[in-house]
């Protein structure tokens, strides 16, 4: 997720500024089985998913809270038969629709219907630049070829196309080929992402972590190409956390830009927030999105800077990165209230480097596919 977005001024004293976007995880179902999937390891079954009428109401509430965009994601949102209906409703109430998809279920007919419903932007994930590696990671034979076909259809329909490429030990050496492929497909934007180690990816870290040499080569390759890419494709590139010296501003700051609704209707400040123990999450059946955004306990818990311990409390960067990622602080420092240990000022930073180097050296490790 790109966070290059302006923070809106608060509308009234004490009221938080409205969110920029609401992410709707329509389902956790997906034909792919990526070992770094960002869905929780305990997936919501189809029977638990919100029905169409409830998602429609949630869309209304997203517009009410002041969100400008909606992201239909998952899992694979195209498994929902009501996707067109939801996009049409979002369009009616003035929301900008993004579809975040693996693209293997999207054919020309459906794409036309989604376009007619007002869809603006399709983001397609690629697992590699070439079919063999991509299909192995996704655990879905023929998936890569289908993605490329769909990507071309998206561009032919005049919709905006983003290619999302997730890099790890097994494909990081082909970053140039991935960029070339995105250009060839006619994408307006590419996200060069590195695996974020939560959920499934945390379990599979030893099978995915790139080495320092791999990482430096990739970083140099991307930076060398940025000037020639300017004006041709928008590049969103973030240095991978475990090799960074300062953390990212996760989600643009806790409860500052985004709300996330899970398939069963839980309302989260970030998609991994459920990993944090002791947090209470409301659902769309408890209160409206506006109420939850304003003073829901999960939202206020880490919003702003008042919650921060040292070293963040007295740090000049605290309103830039907001102390980094809470879920990563939990995963790596054992404490969601701590500074993100990716930060070199964190007392746990050395331990992160040790873990990273251990996992990067664990060659030959098999990953475990995402599954029920």
């Amino acid at each position, binding site marked *: 997720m790109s966070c290059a977005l302006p923070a809106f001024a608060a509308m009234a004293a004490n009221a938080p500024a*409205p969110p920029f976007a609401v992410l709707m995880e329509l389902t956790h179902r997906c034909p792919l089985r990526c070992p770094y999937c960002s869905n929780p390891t305990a997936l919501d079954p189809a029977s638990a998913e919100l029905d169409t009428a409830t998602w429609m109401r949630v869309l209304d509430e997203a517009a009410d809270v002041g969100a400008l965009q909606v992201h239909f994601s998952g899992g694979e949102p195209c498994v929902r038969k009501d996707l067109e209906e939801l996009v049409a409703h979002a369009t009616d109430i003035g929301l900008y629709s993004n579809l975040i998809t693996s693209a293997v279920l999207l054919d020309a007919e459906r794409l036309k219907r989604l376009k007619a419903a007002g869809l603006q932007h399709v983001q397609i994930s690629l697992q590699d630049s070439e079919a063999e590696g991509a299909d192995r990671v996704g655990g879905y034979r023929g998936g890569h070829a289908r993605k490329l076909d769909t990507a071309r259809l998206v561009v032919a329909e005049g919709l905006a196309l983003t290619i999302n490429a997730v890099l790890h030990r097994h494909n990081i050496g082909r970053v140039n080929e991935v960029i070339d492929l995105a250009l060839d497909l006619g994408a*307006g934007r590419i996200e060069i992402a590195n695996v974020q180690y939560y959920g499934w990816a945390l379990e599979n870290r030893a099978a995915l972590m790139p080495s320092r040499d791999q990482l430096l080569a990739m970083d140099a390759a991307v930076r060398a190409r940025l000037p020639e890419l300017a004006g041709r494709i928008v590049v969103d590139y973030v240095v991978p956390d475990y090799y960074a010296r300062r953390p990212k501003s996760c989600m643009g700051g806790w409860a500052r830009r985004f709300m996330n609704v899970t398939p069963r209707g839980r309302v989260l400040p970030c998609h991994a927030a459920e990993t944090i123990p002791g947090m209470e999450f409301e659902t769309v059946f408890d209160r409206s999105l506006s109420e939850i955004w304003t003073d829901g306990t999960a939202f206020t818990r880490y919003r702003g800077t008042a919650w921060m311990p040292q070293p963040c409390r007295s740090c000049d960067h605290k309103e830039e990165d907001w102390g980094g990622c809470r879920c990563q602080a939990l995963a790596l420092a054992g404490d969601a209230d701590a500074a993100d240990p990716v930060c070199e000022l964190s007392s746990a930073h050395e331990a992160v480097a040790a873990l990273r180097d251990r996992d990067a050296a664990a060659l030959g490790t098999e990953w475990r596919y995402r599954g029920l």
Partner: protein
Amino acid sequence: MTLAGIAESDRLRLAPGVMLRHDRLRGQWMLMGPERLLVLDDMALAVIRAATGPEAGDVAQAIDRLAAEYDAPRDEISADVLELLTDLRNKGYLTA
């Protein structure tokens, strides 16, 4: 090979997935695009309106119109307009 800046002979339009929109809640004009948005000041809004859209013609005509509308010397505003348009193109909001 770096792409050149926008020239007066270019014809521009909003890139796929980009729309110009007024947000009532915030009282602001913005360009909305894939997972991004740009809040516009009055000048940027005027330039985008002049340079895109079915009747816009090329960038030279857009600059002519802006010069007339704001009663500004053409050669004083043209460099600023081209710079702004190049920046918007490089950020993916406009396409030639």
